[in-house]
């Protein structure tokens, strides 16, 4: 039972930030694309802005790995 809960926790640790990242990137992406159409020189800024929300899912992944290691997986 405890292992099942830990697995669920790991899944939530990566799943919820993944949804949040997708939501944020889904909003930043079109705005960045629209800006690039007018100012192509903003491409670096656009890439950075799109990459920023990925921190959530990356840290979520790290936490999930740590949980699974604690579960002995």
């Amino acid at each position: 039972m405890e292992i099942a809960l830990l697995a669920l926790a790991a899944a939530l640790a990566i799943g919820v930030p993944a949804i949040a990242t997708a939501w944020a990137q889904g909003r930043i992406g079109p705005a960045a694309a629209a800006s690039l159409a007018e100012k192509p020189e903003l491409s670096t800024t656009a890439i950075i802005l799109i990459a920023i929300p990925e921190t959530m899912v990356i840290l979520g992944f790290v936490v999930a790995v740590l949980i699974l290691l604690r579960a002995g997986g």
Partner: protein
Amino acid sequence: MIVRMARVRVAGPRPRLDQVLEVLQDSGLLHLDRPPTPETSYPAHTPTKERRHTERCLVDVDTAIERLQVMPNAGRFPDAPALTREAVRRARRVRRQADRLTGERTALEEERVLLLRYRAFFQAFESLVGHELTWPDGQAFYVVLRAGAGGALGELKHSLETAVHGEVEVLHRALPSGEWAVLILVSERAAPTVSSLLSASRVEELPAPGGLGHTNLLRALPSLKSRLASIPGALAALDADRRSLARVEGPWLMALRASLRDRLLLLDARSRVLAATHLFVIEGWLPGARIGELEQRLQSACGPEVVTSTIGQEDWSAPDAPVALHNPPIFRPFEVVTRTLPLPKYGTIDPTPFVAVFFPAFFGLMLGDVGYGLMLAALAWLLRRRSTPDSALRSISTIGFACASSAVAFGLVFGELFGSLGQAIGLKPFFNRETATVSFLGLAIALGAVHIALGIVLAGLNAWHRGHRREAMGRGVTLSMLVLTVLALLAAVEVLPAALFTPFAIAILVAFPVLVALEGVVAIIELLSTFGHILSYARIMALGTASLMLAVVANEMVGAMGSVVVGVLFALLFHLVNFAIGLFSPTIHALRLHYVEFFGHFFSPGGAEYRPLGHWHSTT
């Protein structure tokens, strides 16, 4: 690093101004900057009539080059053409010839497109050609109905027959596109009624091609077909004329364009010169090490009447100086990464050398695979073969080689070759990142701490050099707190003696109010964000582990598909996908770690690029 600049002043008799500007243009050294303007000064006279004249001629030349499709390597013209009346006339004449060829080509293309719209009609009604027409002097209407509108044909036919008392013949054929080609033949008397009925019911007619001498398509069909067949030949003849004209006039046009652009650069330069009736003054920037070269050139070309002097640094401020980056050849390709952001201000730090060290290291840590590294090296080699020296592509290929080397080196450390295959063929991992996940996380965060600490040191040095002592001390205290925090954590997990934890914690508590006193309350937020930035380096571990896991999954496909051949094919495909992800993701995240986390501490964008007056060069 940012090249040290000097500001110089060139003064001389007014009649020598044009000669001096030409020498400056030939030398390509001086970035002109308008001297501080006293109220009684005069700007040098800029001949607006000459500028307009030059620009008009340049429009002719550019248009002719574009329309004739002259290639940049069209050949060399022996001498730079002078901007004489004859040259202007010749440029105008060539432009008109180019306009005529382009216009004729466009007209032929449009005609071909229109005739091609009739091709479906040709094929649908070709069998009727030569048949006797019911109304030889009648009129034909051509209509294409959209796909699925075939059911309305009966109704259309009935309505027309009723309206014109049977003096109409409606022929229809299904087209391969699903549309319906409809040919409506009517007597001369009934034609106006049918035309108005079609207009009223908004049925769109196909416009009849003009210039063929027949109003009836069935009679015009042979002419249309032969016209369509003759168009490619006519287009080829026009292209041959264009190529011939480009061969004859191309090198001269390219040389004239360079002369005209050079002349415009000189006219622009004149607007940045101060001149009185007898004297002119030019000021500008150049690399400090090249002042002697400029003096020598001016001296030998213009004699002692033209005087060059260096303006003391106390008379100019650093933010006004333009920025030129100069790095050792091994670091230079990484200027591409730095230049994607605005240039750093003069007097601050050029981050290129640090990018050259850390960017490939981060990339290699994330990809960390001998196989993928070799694939990247092959890709970089291909890119290098297709690039020209000093181009951005060449720089990117060099960065690719650096990243590939790093990925191979870390692949050997991790014992990875296409994931787990490395260990299967006997590669011994010195650090197994598949099992030592927590250690890998610690390594990534430790690397982040070092990188951020370096950023804070650079910020402190930057502030110190600009005379902002208080800010520099604040950076020093922030760095101390960072180091103390790391030491306290190491003591807490007993890597260092546990007894040291309390002294470290007390030192942090003492440093904190000092930091707030130096930098204000905002220092608290900055300190927290610094720790956030360090944690952000955990992405190195996350992406590295994800890349490894995908490679392991790809290898496991070999035995999981039932057939070895299918399994190997799927594994190869998966490795290819993983390689593509492995190129894209580490690049984006290594860039982000630099731009957001590292540069954020010390980088001061906003420098103006050093653009010396020189000769125009085509970038195409």
